[in-house]
């Protein structure tokens, strides 16, 4: 497939936004149970605003992917069948709740709604945060399922796709949270940094697993099934459009095999290895966390590029980029 920059940014920005929120809310949950010192509302509030910024960035990027952005509102219609539709619903829903969550923190309008038998006060923000968490995961699933549900794209058609979207988004979100807290709540940095390391490690494992899996995939469709001729030697002589067509533009990354091969270690280094090192060092020198996040985000962009480029669409059998 040809990686579209709108989609690369869309998925990575959303992932970071979702991850950041999850980090904040994890913190709030810890704090609720007294495992961590509660932070000022502004910490969660501004953190949510930052997450919203990323999500909005993703939203904007998504419009670049649409031929007819003015009709984008229509895309919620098919939630019964379409993961894209579901994503379109999940995203604003998540953003809305997240907004309320952040606003509630910032405005101080955070009444206690329930008091649990143990005397634990459940505030509005906590309820909102819980809903937002569910939505964040729903959004991760929707986004990932957009790809994972396409059974012809066998590189994507795997639970690993969903797991990795969650892990990769969360990793970058937690890293960002570490950066954020490094600035506004230095005492909490190691909490976020620690989790970021754990999730990045998991993401590394998940992504490596999918790389291994994909490397062993055997194409299910072949030239023989594509045109229905039983012969081991079939060569396409012409694809019917010498100047190219939508099918040659959309489904081919047009980069060399060497480029593709080089990008893999690059993103593994940038998204996982280097950030892990920097996150670890960041425990002592918080300034490195910023670098960790930036490199990891770039790594994830590369990862996403590779994610698309690696997927071989069966339609390509009909368009072997010859004459």
């Amino acid at each position, binding site marked *: *497939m040809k990686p579209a920059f709108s989609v690369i940014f869309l998925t990575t920005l959303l992932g970071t936004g979702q991850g950041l929120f999850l980090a904040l809310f994890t913190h709030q949950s810890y704090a609720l149970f007294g495992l961590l010192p509660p932070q000022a509302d502004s910490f969660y509030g501004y953190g949510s605003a930052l997450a919203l910024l990323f999500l909005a960035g993703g939203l904007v990027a998504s419009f670049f*992917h*649409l*031929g*007819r*952005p003015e*009709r*984008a509102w*229509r*895309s*919620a*219609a*098919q939630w019964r*069948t*379409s*993961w*894209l*539709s579901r994503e*379109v619903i999940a995203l604003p829903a998540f953003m809305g709740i997240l907004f309320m969550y952040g606003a509630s923190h910032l405005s101080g309008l955070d009444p206690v709604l329930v008091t649990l038998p143990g005397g634990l006060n459940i505030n509005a923000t906590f309820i909102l945060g819980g809903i937002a968490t569910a939505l964040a995961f729903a959004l991760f699933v929707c986004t990932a399922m*957009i790809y994972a*549900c*396409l*059974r*012809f*794209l066998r590189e994507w058609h795997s639970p690993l796709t969903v797991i990795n979207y969650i892990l990769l988004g969360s990793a970058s979100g937690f890293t960002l949270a570490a950066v954020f807290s490094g600035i506004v709540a230095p005492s909490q940095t190691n909490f976020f940094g620690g989790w970021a390391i754990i999730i990045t490690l998991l993401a590394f494992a998940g992504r490596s697993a999918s790389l291994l899996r994909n490397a062993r995939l055997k194409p*299910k*469709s072949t*030239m023989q*099934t*594509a*045109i*229905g*001729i039983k*012969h081991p*030697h*079939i*060569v*396409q*002589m*012409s*694809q*019917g*459009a*010498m*100047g*190219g*067509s*939508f*099918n040659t533009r*959309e*489904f081919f990354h047009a980069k060399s095999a060497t480029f593709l091969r080089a990008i893999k270690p690059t993103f593994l280094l940038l998204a996982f290895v280097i950030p892990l090192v920097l996150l670890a060092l960041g425990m002592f020198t918080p300034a490195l966390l910023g670098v960790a996040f930036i490199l990891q985000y770039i790594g994830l962009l590369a990862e996403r590029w590779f994610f698309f480029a690696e997927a071989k*669409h*069966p*339609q*390509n059998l*009909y*368009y072997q980029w010859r004459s």
Partner: protein
Amino acid sequence: MTQLALVIDLNVCVGCHACVTSCKEWNTSGSAGPLCDERPYQADPTGTFFNRVQTFEVGHYPHSETLHFPKSCLHCEDPPCVPVCPTGASYKREEDGIVLVDYDKCIGCKYCTWACPYGAREFDEKQKVMKKCTLCVDRIYDQSLAEIDRKPSCVKACPTSARLFGDIHDPESAVSQAIREDGGYALMPEWGTHPANHYLPRRKTKLNIHNDELERADNPLKVDGQLPKPGKGEPSMDDVSAW
């Protein structure tokens, strides 16, 4: 239930591309139109077509076959392009199984093309909506056309009548019969999309000659006394047997 479809007979398709341009021609000024072309007179011209004819070579010289292979939307019975569409712009008509795009709903997200294993949809880069073969839905029911014209444009055009059109759910239809009798097959059956369009394979006619057919009594060489007869002086059994 009706499922309209094309059945393409590779046995007679000569790869003339009539179906390609007649389709473009009908549809560019039709309900799907215009079908835009980018750089029409410049380098690497490219445009939206609903139907393409491709060529493949099978085997090695001299036992090679050249295969012309027309391909448009196969109007899958279980079309993976439809459920993924977020807007409902992609839909399959219940009454005849035609898979269509609603150009007024389509947001141009291209997701449906990812879901089609056949590369049968083309995004119109100027109109910014997804387009594909409509089975000429705006011809086949048009009562203002004469009966013989109520066919897809490509079918009408095809000089070798390699393109059959009809209801593959009606066992009596010409298309069902062709699929049944001439070995009709579907593309990429492994995905369970159940394409409505089918292809008919090459069929070969051979002539079997027996040697004795070469030497017949009515050989005209006899009339002219030219059939090789052994000379009288040549050896024969008469010379060596004594009974």
